[in-house]
């Protein structure tokens, strides 16, 4: 019942036991234990194929935070299944490959396999989760595990740089996506993707519809390395090759593709979605293939080719979404929706041939010690099996028969040609650019495929440039690429097995209406007769060969492109300048000088209070209720004001301290006038002690000569001081004029009946509100302890003790 949920969790659970296996069973390569996980999962998931091909879906939900509508919900349909089979299938092959690729002695294998299993589980979680927030959790887990895997050789600076870059970019997109998800669920009223899809159609006019769409696309584009967020992928090539093969060609970069496909029923049919997805895809396609040609590192070349191929898939998803705009589901709209089918087909094809190619490059690297195509050459006779796999992979990528890439590329051309006929979205203006750019990008793809083959395997063998003497890879290392290469060929000859059992249900998940309407009727065919697509392929081969032969003559075109404007420079510059600017700004206001902080505090308080007071009209003065002023009080107030002001002009601190004492006694006198005997008493005693304390400190404080001059009056300080004083006065007067209700003090006049006390103030302190008094005692206690410690405790080792000097 919970098979799919358990399948998602299995890799995480196994990962827990990896360190144990690694330590206890160190004689066996840890990878063998890990291999069982994806193989078992693949077998289990494969058993769902017949049911899913019949249109069944599986749903199981484990409550996680049910009160918030967040549940660990697994939903298995055609789209999830095709991705899951890729994840577990390619995952098994990659783990098998890594067993031979990574040395048992030199590498910390347990880290590698824990990260890899974490990634696998997270990826399965992404494709099976029906709950938006759970999907997001797994999405970020893929980012984190990818980060850990890229920096696997963390002693290398480049690895750390690549890991940080991919983390920053994918997490940036991921957070955007989270915002998009929250917007989406806020107007759809549910976190469940299925329910959102079912309820769609009414939301298109919602104000958050387009922002949610764009934010979700941001997440998809960053993860799938679409232009201009593709820059992290080439730097992620610092990871071990199995990781590059798995994460950065077959699975993780397709998470964005998955997301776009999954949300096509939600957002598809909208012009914004159509244009953004298609244009970003086609630009990525062209830019990736254009940049791949200039690379000298095989992995970098493959990284850019991955970017380019992902752009191709993205374009197809964008073009196919237009079919949802049609009002009726018939053969005409179905005709356009086939782009989606092509996208899914190419997705599978790309995983097979790109996985194989990365493994080939890994083998070349492993057996020769370099991936630099300027040092390589003539490996065909040395490594015949590797060479064969490389040819199959490259020609499939270039779109030649008899490999599966040919079929999906033909379908791609069909899609871009059909789109010109589209009667809406103002395609007539710019639509023609799609086939042209697509064709040019395919020519460039063909060129870099030729570079990959000819520069590595043909030409002169130069053993002196290589670190190792080249030889064929061990058998175990070749198994995985050979399996993938055979799939590449098998899919060409039997595409409809794949089409019927996997692609059609996946297509059905993206475009359910077309399956329901029963218009789906399509067979993948290698031969369509002589048509435009075939002529385009022939043109590609012709022009590609010419371009490859004349490569040295036109390669200079790359140096025309200003290095200053490269996106990597932009990224690095932005990172550095953000760091420097924020440092500068912080250093500017965080001066470390208390005076400045006090200025900020006073200015903010003044600004807030005056703004509020003036804008809300809270100020009002009403002096009619004032009690009369007796002559004593008047004189006392005047004396007090004079005393206070004269503190400012005190020539020495001694005067200042004494005047402060006078002020305290005057306050005590006021308390007498105000009929507060307890206050007067306390104030007298406390003021005496305080004055004594001041004098004590005065005795110990610095020699006075330089301090004796009166402080330089500062205009700003004066202004702030006057404004603060005025603020308090104004507030006090306003409050006095706006008494809203009477005091509750009449209750305390029952002190004798309730507390047996005649002194009301003491009854409040010791009975009605004794809790305050208790804590006040605690304050005194703490202050006393603090004073004692400050005086007694010797300076720590680092501090200077001036007493002895």
């Amino acid at each position, binding site marked *: 019942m919970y098979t799919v949920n358990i399948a998602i969790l299995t890799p995480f659970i196994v990962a827990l036991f990896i360190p144990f296996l690694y330590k206890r069973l160190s004689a066996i390569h840890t990878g063998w234990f890990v291999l069982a996980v994806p193989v078992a999962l693949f077998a289990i998931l494969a058993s769902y194929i017949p049911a899913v091909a019949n249109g069944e879906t599986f749903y199981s939900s484990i409550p996680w935070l049910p009160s918030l509508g967040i549940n660990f919900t697994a939903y298995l349909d055609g789209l999830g299944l095709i991705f899951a089979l890729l994840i577990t299938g390619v995952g098994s092959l990659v783990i098998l490959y890594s067993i031979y690729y990574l040395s048992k002695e030199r590498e910390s294998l347990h880290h590698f396999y824990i990260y890899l299993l974490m990634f696998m589980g997270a990826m399965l979680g992404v494709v099976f989760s029906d709950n938006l927030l759970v999907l997001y959790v797994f999405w970020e887990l893929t980012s984190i595990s990818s980060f850990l895997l890229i920096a696997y050789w963390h002693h290398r600076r480049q690895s750390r740089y690549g890991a940080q870059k991919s983390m920053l970019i994918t997490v940036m997109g991921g957070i955007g996506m989270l915002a998009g998800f929250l917007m989406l669920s806020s107007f759809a009223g549910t976190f469940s993707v299925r329910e959102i899809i079912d309820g769609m159609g009414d939301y298109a006019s919602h104000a958050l519809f387009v922002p949610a769409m764009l934010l979700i696309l941001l997440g998809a584009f960053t993860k799938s390395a679409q232009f201009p967020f593709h820059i992290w992928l080439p730097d992620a090539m610092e990871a071990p090759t199995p990781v590059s093969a798995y994460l950065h060609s077959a699975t993780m970069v397709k998470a964005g593709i998955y997301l776009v496909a999954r949300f096509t029923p939600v957002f598809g049919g909208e012009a914004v979605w159509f244009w953004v997805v298609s244009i970003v895809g086609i630009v990525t396609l062209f830019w990736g293939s254009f940049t791949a040609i200039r690379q000298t590192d095989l992995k970098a070349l493959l990284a850019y080719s991955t970017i380019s191929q992902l752009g191709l898939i993205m374009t197809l998803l964008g073009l196919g979404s237009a079919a949802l705009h049609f009002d009726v589901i018939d053969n005409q709209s179905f005709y356009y929706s086939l782009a989606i089918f092509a996208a899914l087909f190419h997705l599978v094809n790309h995983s097979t041939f790109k996985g194989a190619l990365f493994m080939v490059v890994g083998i070349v690297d492993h057996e020769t010690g370099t991936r630099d195509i300027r040092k390589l050459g003539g490996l065909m006779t040395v490594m015949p099996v590797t060479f064969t796999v490389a040819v199959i992979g490259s020609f499939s990528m270039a779109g030649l028969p008899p490999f599966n890439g040919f079929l999906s590329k033909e379908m791609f051309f069909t899609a871009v040609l059909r789109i010109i006929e589209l009667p809406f979205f103002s395609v007539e203006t710019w639509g023609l650019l799609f086939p042209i750019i697509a064709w040019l990008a395919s020519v460039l793809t063909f060129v870099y495929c030729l570079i990959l083959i000819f520069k590595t395997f043909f030409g002169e063998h130069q053993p002196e440039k290589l670190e190792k003497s080249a030889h064929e890879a061990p058998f175990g290392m070749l198994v995985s690429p050979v399996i993938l290469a055979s799939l590449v060929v098998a899919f060409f000859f039997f595409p409809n097995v794949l089409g019927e059992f996997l692609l059609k249900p996946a297509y059905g998940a993206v475009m359910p209406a077309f399956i329901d309407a029963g218009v789906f009727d399509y067979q993948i065919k290698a031969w369509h007769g002589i048509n435009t697509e075939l002529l385009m392929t022939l043109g590609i081969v012709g022009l590609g060969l010419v371009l490859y032969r004349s490569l040295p003559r036109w390669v200079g075109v790359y140096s025309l492109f200003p290095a200053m404007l490269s996106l990597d420079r932009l990224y690095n510059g932005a990172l550095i300048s953000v760091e420097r600017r924020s440092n500068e700004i912080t250093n500017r206001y965080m001066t470390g000088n208390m*005076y400045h902080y006090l200025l900020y505090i006073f200015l903010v308080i003044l600004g807030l209070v005056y703004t509020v007071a003036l804008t809300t009209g809270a100020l009002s003065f009403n002096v009619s209720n*004032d009690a009369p002023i007796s002559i004593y009080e008047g004189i006392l107030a005047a004396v007090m004001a004079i005393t206070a002001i004269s503190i400012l002009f005190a020539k020495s601190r001694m005067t200042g301290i004494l005047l402060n004492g006078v*002020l*305290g006694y005057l306050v005590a006198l006021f308390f007498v006038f105000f009929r507060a005997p307890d206050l007067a008493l306390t104030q007298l005693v406390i003021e005496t002690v305080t004055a004594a304390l001041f004098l004590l400190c005065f005795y*110990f404080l610095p020699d006075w000569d330089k301090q004796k001059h009166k402080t330089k009056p500062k205009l700003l300080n004066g202004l702030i*001081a006057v404004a603060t*004083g005025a603020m308090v006065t104004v507030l*006090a007067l306003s409050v006095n004029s706006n008494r809203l209700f009477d*005091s509750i003090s009449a209750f305390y006049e029952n002190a004798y009946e309730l507390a047996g006390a005649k002194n009301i103030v003491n009854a409040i302190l010791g009975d009605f509100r004794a809790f305050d008094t208790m804590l006040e005692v605690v304050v*005194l206690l703490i202050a006393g302890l603090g004073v004692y410690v400050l005086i007694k405790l010797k300076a720590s080792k680092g501090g200077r003790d001036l007493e002895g000097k």
Partner: protein
Amino acid sequence: METMMSLLVGVLVTVATYLILSKSLLRVILGTAIMSHAVHLLIMIMGGFSGDSSAPLLGEEATSYTDALPQALILTAIVISFGVTALFLVLAYRTYRDLGTDDLTKLRGLDDDE
């Protein structure tokens, strides 16, 4: 009466603020001491006056008493501000003894803080 006292509190706050904004630590402490005087008086006047009422002692058997609640509050506040002032003063003493200055502009963290 309230107006006059409000003005007096304003003067005290002005003086205290000006002192708090100065460089010398002792002046800052003086400023806080004066600020607490001002606040105590402010609480007092906010409680309101009535010229003919008696001190809050029931033995007086007067018709009306002054408001006892602000007095209790002030009493608590006086004690707390005394505790804080005492600690602050000793801290200033200790600062000078260990660091050799009471100039706030020179007290800007140790060099190895950064």
